[in-house]
C-alpha cells in the first residue's frame, strides 16, 4: 500500500484554502489539503502526496538529520554511540524546530 511522493506546494488556491497546486520535478497537480487542516502548509512547503491528498508535511530538518546519521554509518562505533546519546530517536528529546507538532500540544 501507499505509493506516496514528496511534492512542493507552488500555490494555495485563492478560492479554496483546501486546494493547492503542487510540483514534482515539473509535473503539476492539484492536491487536497483537507487532511492537514490542523497544521496548514504554505506555499514553498513540501508535503507527502497520496491519491491526490497531502498526508503529512515533510520536515527538512529531520531529512537532514537522517542524511547526517547515514553519512556517519561506518565511522567508528564510538562516534555512532555518541550520536545515539543525543536521543535523536526519542520524540520527546527532539530539538524544537519551530514546527507545530501535535505531540507538542500535549
Amino acid at each position, binding site marked *: 500500500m*501507499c*505509493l506516496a511522493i514528496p511534492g512542493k506546494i507552488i500555490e494555495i488556491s485563492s478560492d479554496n484554502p483546501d486546494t493547492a497546486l503542487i510540483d*514534482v*520535478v*515539473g*509535473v503539476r*497537480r492539484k492536491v487536497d489539503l483537507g487532511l492537514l487542516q490542523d497544521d496548514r502548509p504554505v506555499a514553498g512547503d513540501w508535503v507527502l*502526496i*497520496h*491519491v491526490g491528498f497531502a498526508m503529512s508535511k515533510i520536515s527538512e530538518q529531520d531529512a537532514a538529520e537522517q542524511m547526517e546519521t547515514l553519512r556517519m554509518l561506518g565511522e567508528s562505533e564510538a562516534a555512532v554511540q555518541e550520536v545515539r546519546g543525543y536521543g535523536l530517536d526519542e520524540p520527546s528529546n527532539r530539538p524544537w524546530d519551530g514546527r507545530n507538532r501535535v505531540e507538542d500540544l500535549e
Partner: protein
Amino acid sequence: MPIRFRDPQIEMAHGAGGQASRRLIEGLFAPILFGASAEPLTDAAHVKFDGAQLAITTDSFVVKPIRFPGGSIGELAVNGTANDLAVSGARPEALVVTYIVEAGLRSEILEAEVRAMGTAAQKAGVRIVGGDTKVVEHGKADSMYITTAGIGRALKGVVIDPASVKPGDKILVSGPIGDHGITILLARGELDLEADLTSDTRSVFPLVEVLVRAAGPGVRWMRDPTRGGAATSLNELARDCGLGIVLQEEEIPVRDAVRGACELLGLDPLHIANEGQFLAVVAPEYADAAINALNLTLGGEDARVIGEVREQPTGAVLISTRYGGSRIIDMLVGDPLPRIC
C-alpha cells in the same frame, strides 16, 4: 500449422504491444498467414526483386486524443511508418494511407490531419503516393483511424538480424524514453496532471543513417520501441537471440517530467511508448564511434549506451543499479496502469 491462441475474446491488452499482443500474433496470425516460417517477426519485411532489395511495412494508428502536445495522429502515421522502415535498415521512400473517418467529424479536423500528414511527409522526405478513405458510423472510430503501408530501399551493408547478436555487444538508445506515452496519458485529462511535455514523434531515419555510417558493419539489430516501451522491444530481442541483456539504470536517459509523472503514477519509463526513438545493438568496437556520431547530430544529443548483451540471463532483460542491486525487466502484460499502492 495449428493455431496456439486460446484466449476466448479479444481484449485491449492484445493491442498494447506486450505479452498478449505477442501471443495473438505468434499464436493466431503467424501460423495461418506465415505458415511454417520460423523467422522472427520484424518491423518491416525485406523482399528482393530482380536484384533490388525493398523493405515493406504496414502500420495502423489509433490514438486518443488525436491531437496532443507535440503532434497528432497524422504525424504519428507518417513517422511511425518511416521508423519501421528505418530500423529494418532501409531508407523510407513512399507510403500509401487509408483514413477511416467517423461520421459527424468536423471537416476542419480532417483537414488539419491531412495537412499535418503532408508536412510530416515533407519533413521526413517520403512521398505519399496514394490512399483510400472510408466513413463509418458515429461512435465507431474515435474521430479517425489511419493505416499505412510503406516501402523503402534497403541500405547497403546493413543486415539486421538478431541471430548476429553476440555477448559483449552494446545496447544504444537514441534519446530520452517515455515522452510520447506520458504526453498522451496527460493529454487524456483523466489524471489531472500537467507538465511541459511533448510527444517525441519524428522520423528517426536521419539518426539511423548517421549510425549506419559510423558503425555499419557493426550494427546487428534495431527497433523503434513504440507500444510496450523499450522493455518490450528488448525482451523480444533477448528471446529472439537467445541471450541476455543487462541495462545500467543510471545510463538510461529520462526527462525529469517523465520521471516525475512515472513516480507519481507508479509507472516504469521502460514500459512507456516512444514515437521518435530507436534502440540499436552495436558491436563493442563500434559503440564509441556510434555514440559520438549520434551526439554530434541534431536530435541525437542524448543518445547513450545503456547496457550490453551477455550470455545470461538467457532470454531475459535485467537492469542493475550502481550499488549492485538488480531486477528483471519484464515485457508488459497489457497497457501500463497507474497504481496507488
